[in-house]
């Protein structure tokens, strides 16, 4: 085709990934570029398709928790929680109150650690090579040590059970979490100073990858991506699960739906999570941590289907569970937030500069483990 000055131009196809330092895992993007402009983008996923949903059909409810740990491998507690909530919903039971508080605290801590991971990775995407990563991981490591003290594992906890949690928290749990929180407050401030108002960072992210509220809803986006576009949908507030209706917290909303808003929403969410944890620590009652059913793991939900969703760090993580009344579920469908957020990538990347494609992808904060399952 002839360009403006009568020069013949051809569209170039540019392949990014599956091994690319800035694709956050094994993700492939085929970009159709016209000079520096991206005309179209096609996401190719499936490089980490491990067949978790199929494997769930042969394992019992206790064993499946280990598979759910490995879906969104940055927010393991949240994943376990959703599956356990789904099974509990089908069985019509509820975890004891103390267990619910422990779950809340762990999930919110995990949200912070996940956003810290995002902070580091996003800094790298924008060009602050290792510095942001170093700061993000310094905070993350402290949280992981708490996780290890509670569940015994740094990442794959298998701590939340159907009907409760696996074991009582250690004796020094409350003071320790409080100490971690006060450290985190300082850490978040430091991270904030490093990046948030940085002029180069603003230049790279302001007005880039704008997603309108209408589009975000239409694509089924959720989590910070949706809220950055100004839609106040947070499952913790819209359909309170656990004990979230007892806490007061804000839902940070973006204005324009650009990359900076998505970043800012996450930074604010960390502060909100800290406040939620503080409230939970004060309110946490004594008592049992498991219902009798959780002790032995012989979970057999009655026949039926249920859908449960919860607010993961990446958005609205849902499980559609179909049971036939056996020891293994009949069908588990996982609605992964990154999977749905990634659908909107094409819309956002179109028309932007090539260099911004990485920034936009980074701002979605995808985890391929749950995109591909």
């Amino acid at each position, binding site marked *: 085709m002839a360009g403006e000055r009568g020069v013949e131009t051809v569209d170039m196809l540019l392949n990014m990934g599956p091994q690319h330092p800035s694709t956050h895992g094994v993700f492939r993007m085929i970009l159709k570029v016209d000079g520096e402009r991206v005309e179209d983008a096609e996401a190719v996923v499936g490089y980490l398709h491990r067949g978790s949903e199929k494997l769930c059909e042969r394992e019992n409810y206790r064993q499946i928790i280990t598979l759910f740990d490995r879906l969104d491998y940055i927010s393991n507690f949240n994943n376990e929680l959703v599956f356990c909530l789904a099974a509990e919903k089908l069985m*019509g039971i509820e975890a004891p109150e103390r267990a619910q508080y422990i779950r809340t605290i762990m999930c919110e801590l995990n949200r912070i650690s996940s956003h810290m991971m995002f902070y580091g990775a996003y800094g790298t995407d924008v060009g602050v090579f290792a510095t942001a990563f170093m700061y993000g991981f310094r905070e993350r490591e402290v949280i992981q040590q708490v996780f290890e003290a509670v569940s015994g594992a740094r990442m794959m906890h298998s701590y939340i059970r159907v009907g409760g949690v696996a074991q009582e928290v250690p004796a020094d749990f409350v003071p320790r979490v409080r100490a971690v929180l006060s450290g985190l407050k300082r850490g978040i401030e430091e991270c904030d100073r490093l990046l948030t108002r940085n002029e180069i960072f603003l230049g790279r992210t302001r007005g880039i990858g704008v997603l309108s509220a209408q589009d975000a809803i239409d694509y089924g986006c959720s989590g910070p991506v949706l809220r950055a576009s100004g839609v106040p949908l947070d499952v913790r507030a819209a359909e309170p699960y656990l004990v979230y209706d007892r806490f007061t917290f804000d839902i940070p909303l973006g204005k324009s739906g650009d990359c900076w808003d998505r970043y800012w929403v996450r930074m604010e969410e960390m502060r909100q999570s800290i406040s939620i944890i503080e409230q939970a620590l004060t309110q946490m009652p004594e008592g049992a941590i498991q219902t009798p059913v959780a002790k032995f793991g012989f979970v057999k939900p009655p026949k039926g289907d249920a859908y449960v969703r919860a607010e993961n760090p990446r958005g609205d993580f849902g499980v559609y569970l179909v049971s036939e009344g056996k020891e293994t579920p009949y069908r588990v469908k996982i609605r992964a937030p990154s999977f749905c957020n990634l659908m909107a990538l094409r819309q956002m990347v179109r028309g932007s500069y090539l260099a911004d494609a990485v920034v936009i992808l980074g701002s979605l904060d995808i985890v391929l483990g749950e995109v591909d399952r």
Partner: protein
Amino acid sequence: MPEPRPVRRGPEKAEPVAPVRPDAKMEALLKEAFAGFGAAFGYAVDEVTVTAPRERIVEACRLAKDDPRLRFDYLRCLAVTEYGDYFQAAYLLFSTALGHKAMLKTNAPKDDAVIPSVMGVWRGADWHEREGAELFGVTFAGHPDLKHLLLFDEFSGKYPMRKDFPFEETVDWTPENDRPWSRLPQEGS
């Protein structure tokens, strides 16, 4: 100093929680809205399910989205499930404006596994449908680009999520099937 083992056998919650039932108002509303569809109604714990015939599923979805009383503008999930001799697609809906939820379902027999695509209603149905098509072999008629999403060409014609697709056998390590290259000096590739 060993940390004492905290053994706590506190009072356990023995009384069963009252069964969760969906909102009666929602049920009445759905029954009224989907009156002309020949739809069946049911429950999925706390949600009302509406099973519409698959010929009219797009129409039903559009109604669910556009009806001012329902306004289901957010597709939470689209799950395909294989039952005995039919496939079921469940459309899990949510309204961001009104904050309520419902479940729409439709069935397709196995020998004619075609369900009309709802991509025209919610663009978010795109990848869910592609996934259902490659894992279960359900054709979503009208989808613009129904190619492989998660799998690759080797799986063409094979649908791993179906119940008759076997699991792999594990291969344990034995000295015979060990790969001895780790003990050899490196060679150029």
